[in-house]
């Protein structure tokens, strides 16, 4: 007769193994990359607002491509490859870009002031990080929450000098902190034996 206690323990073991595999999958390098891109992308609004759009047209897609390459390299070093997860990342972040592009008609028709566009984008970015935190990497939940806080800061402290530089710095700090946590769990390269 099957030992149901042993079965329960075995299933608990399998669940624990799977849970371990699901833990934090994004490499530190991607967090640090976006910390730098985000800081300059928001600080530029204070210094040279007319070049902000141009900056993001270049930095956004380029950052996405570099993130994909970094993520792929990380998966190989970590020894865990999932095309389903890679596609999930692609869909999520492409969705964010699409949502941001959908804001353009609001500005071009005058329904939203261009000065408020960065704030609206912060809300979208916050939700994107939150969603990524739920489905892909728990560390992004904190980044999503921090971004929401920075959105509120940008609204209520709108008259503060260098409000966007401070916002960019806040984004960089939250992403950098998440990246530091990721760096604390580095993957191993090769087999000890096979």
């Amino acid at each position: 007769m099957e030992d149901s206690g042993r079965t329960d323990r075995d299933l608990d073991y399998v669940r624990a193994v799977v849970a371990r595999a699901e833990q934090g999958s994004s490499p530190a390098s991607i967090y640090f990359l976006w910390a730098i891109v985000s800081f300059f992308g928001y600080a530029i609004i204070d210094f040279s607002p007319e070049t902000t759009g141009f900056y993001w047209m270049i930095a956004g897609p380029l950052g996405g491509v570099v993130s994909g390459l970094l993520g792929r390299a990380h998966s190989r070093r970590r020894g865990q490859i999932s095309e389903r997860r890679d596609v999930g990342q692609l869909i999520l972040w492409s969705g964010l870009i699409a949502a941001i592009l959908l804001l353009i008609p609001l500005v071009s028709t005058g329904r939203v002031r261009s000065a408020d566009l960065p704030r609206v984008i912060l809300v979208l970015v916050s939700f994107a990080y939150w969603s990524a935190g739920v489905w892909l990497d728990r560390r992004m939940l904190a980044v999503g929450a921090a971004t929401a806080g920075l959105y509120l800061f940008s609204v209520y402290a709108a008259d503060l000098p260098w409000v966007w530089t401070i916002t960019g710095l806040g984004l960089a700090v939250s992403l950098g902190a998440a990246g530091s946590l990721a760096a604390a769990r580095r993957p191993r390269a090769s087999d000890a034996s096979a």
Partner: protein
Amino acid sequence: MKDDFRRLDRLLEHRVRLAIAVLLIRYDRLSFARLKELTEETDGNLGANLRKLEDESYITVRKEFVERKPVSWYSITPKGRKATKAHLDALSQVIAKAGTRPRE
């Protein structure tokens, strides 16, 4: 209930082999080092269990170099995927019926 026990896969009754099979259904490829990290098994134990799964054609292995170091990549075969799903179905039936059996 006896039928449900018969449907259990002998190979996957071992928890480490079941964990390996479940992981390889969820992920396209896992390296030996990653499997060892996740299952918390020794090299010898893990290697022996992987060989048993490979001997039954439940998994395949491909060796390559990553950053100039040898890596063995494991992935599940269609036969292994089917066997794992059947085993998990049978296991869930066993557990469900065990839960509804009257206490003696």
